[in-house]
């Protein structure tokens, strides 16, 4: 079989593959070198991304969201060590060899990056970058061109025949993010990892890009891990949420329930800090104190210095994540109390 034929066969098999595609993250721990010893920037992170589902990953700046997304694909800064499991289609990606990882990257799991201007190569035309995977998969020039035009069109870029010849700096922020999305879709992935895909954009463009991601995810039956520090973004798009604090998962579960009735004081504080989510309060309550960083993680429950419910036990005993309701987990000693109030 030629490489092009293999590529087409792979496309045909995608629908079936997507059915079986769930990502299972178990006890993911990442350490990075740091002056004065290694730091666990991720500590025992576990969650699933079920097929055809959008999972929101939220938390304040520095909580480890980007590290999590990067660790799933083996794209971490130099010097990082990773333990735990990231199982995708029966293989643990953390222990898979380089060739296997390369087959997964772009073609099964693709990234949408936060800063589209930085993520695009400044010296290559948009079309070349969007068409890179098809080109390397052996499609002919004409086929690649058709595919690029189709991808740009699906990403909502007008006049794709003309725009594919532009360089990244000639695009607006919104167009660049659309180009990055088109590039992420170019290898027919089953799972998209979108790291703050709208942070660099102004509000109206943000809404359009989110709508685009949502419609693409629905239309193609993709799974998506949507990283954001913005609760409003996640509440619009995600079916499930994972809330991170200081490199650990504070709480996770179905998005509506978690946001409406948090089982962790940190989630509750996050929700209260956003006026649009809590319509009953006229004013938002900003989160008190500064977020804990993985480098200076407080003892016991890392949230205890800022937690209104903190007791003696919280200072000494690390709360293990546990099931607190149907499909919901919380890492708070007093989750039931929080849920009930």
């Amino acid at each position, binding site marked *: 079989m030629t490489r092009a034929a293999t590529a087409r066969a792979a496309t045909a098999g995608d629908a079936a593959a997507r059915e079986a595609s769930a990502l299972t993250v178990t006890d993911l721990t990442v350490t990075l070198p740091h002056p004065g010893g290694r730091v666990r920037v991720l500590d025992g992170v576990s969650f699933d991304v079920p097929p055809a589902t959008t999972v929101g990953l939220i938390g304040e700046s520095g909580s480890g969201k980007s590290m999590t997304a990067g660790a799933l*694909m083996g*794209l971490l800064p130099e010097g990082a060590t990773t333990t735990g499991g990231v199982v995708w289609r029966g293989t643990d990606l953390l222990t898979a060899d380089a060739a296997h*990882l*390369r*087959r*997964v*990257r*772009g*073609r099964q799991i*693709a*990234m949408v*990056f936060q*800063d589209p201007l*930085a*993520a*695009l*190569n*400044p*010296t*290559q035309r948009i079309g070349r970058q969007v068409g*890179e*995977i098809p080109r*390397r998969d052996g499609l002919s020039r004409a086929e690649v061109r058709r595919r690029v035009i189709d991808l740009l069109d699906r990403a909502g870029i007008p006049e794709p025949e003309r725009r594919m010849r532009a*360089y990244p*700096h*000639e695009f607006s922020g919104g167009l660049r993010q659309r180009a990055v999305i088109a*590039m992420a879709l*170019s*290898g027919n992935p089953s799972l998209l990892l979108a790291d703050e895909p709208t942070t660099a954009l102004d509000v109206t463009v943000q809404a359009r890009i989110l709508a685009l991601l949502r419609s693409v995810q629905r239309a193609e039956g993709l799974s998506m891990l949507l990283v954001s520090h913005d609760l409003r973004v996640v509440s619009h798009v995600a079916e499930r949420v994972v809330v991170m604090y200081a490199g650990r998962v504070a709480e996770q579960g179905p998005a509506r329930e978690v946001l409406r009735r948090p089982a962790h004081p940190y989630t509750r504080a996050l929700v209260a800090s956003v006026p649009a989510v809590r319509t009953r309060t006229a004013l938002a309550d900003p989160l008190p104190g500064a977020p804990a960083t993985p480098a200076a993680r407080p003892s016991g429950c890392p949230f205890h210095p800022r937690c209104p419910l903190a007791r003696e036990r919280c200072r000494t005993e690390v709360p293990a994540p546990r099931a607190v309701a149907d499909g919901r987990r919380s890492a708070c000693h007093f989750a039931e109390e929080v849920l009930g109030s």
Partner: protein
Amino acid sequence: MIRMVVKRLLIGVFVMWGAASLIFLIVRAAPGDPASVLLGPDADREQIRQLHATLGLDRPLHEQYVTYLGDVLRLDFGESHRLGRPAMDAVLERFPATLELTLTATTVAVVAGLLLGLLAGARPGGRTDRVVSAVTIALQSFPTFWVGIMGVLLFALTLRLLPSSGVGTPQHMVLPALTMALPFIAIVARLARSSVTETMREPYVVTARSKGLTEPQILLGHALRNSLVPVVTIVGLQMGALLGGAVIVENVFAWPGLGSLVVDAVANRDYAVVQGVTLLIAGAVTVLNLVADLLCAQLDPRIRMEAAA
């Protein structure tokens, strides 16, 4: 783009005026007198005075300067009294040999330097990187004339593999070109290495990894071109320095280029030839820098945009 070229050329004119003026002053400030050199030690005062008048050297300095600049503007570079012919004719006759040597040395330096720099920069801190870094430091710390003399001693006199001097066969080119290229290789390699290492840390390289590219594919497909801009700029500058530095190497290897011509001209106070060589090299440097800028603009569309703005 045209604006950039025009701007560059205007700067070039300015540079050449500066070079012309400086060399005009330097040759006249240096001790020695063309007339006494031409006439020999037995000439009497009257003969020297007459020759000064013929050469225009009896006129005040500023008058000579104005005449000289006017002549240069009319592309009249004066007569070489020693050679008895227009100075620029003699200069242009020697220029191809120097150019050939410089271009060969540059080609060798760029190819070898880029290769070493890429290999080292692909895995910073790796074994190749450490070896390349040791080699480049060594290459840069030996003076050119010493390398040249050692090359002659080893390859020409001891091993008898290569001719020690002169022209004629490609083998004649090897020692002088390598002598010029070695430190240049080190410059290109070090710059290419740091440029590639830096580029490999760019977010778009992570993007390329996320697309499942292999490291060599990323290096050649994404990092190389983007790392070349600083290299091209330095090669442009360095070639100018090489043209100037050719004087030493050409004299070590008896290479019939501008080097021996200019040494001879200086020794004999042949002002017109010294000035002609200086102007030619200044002109070549201007052109080289322009070419380097155009190449950079070709490599990086953002530079094109800036040039157009």
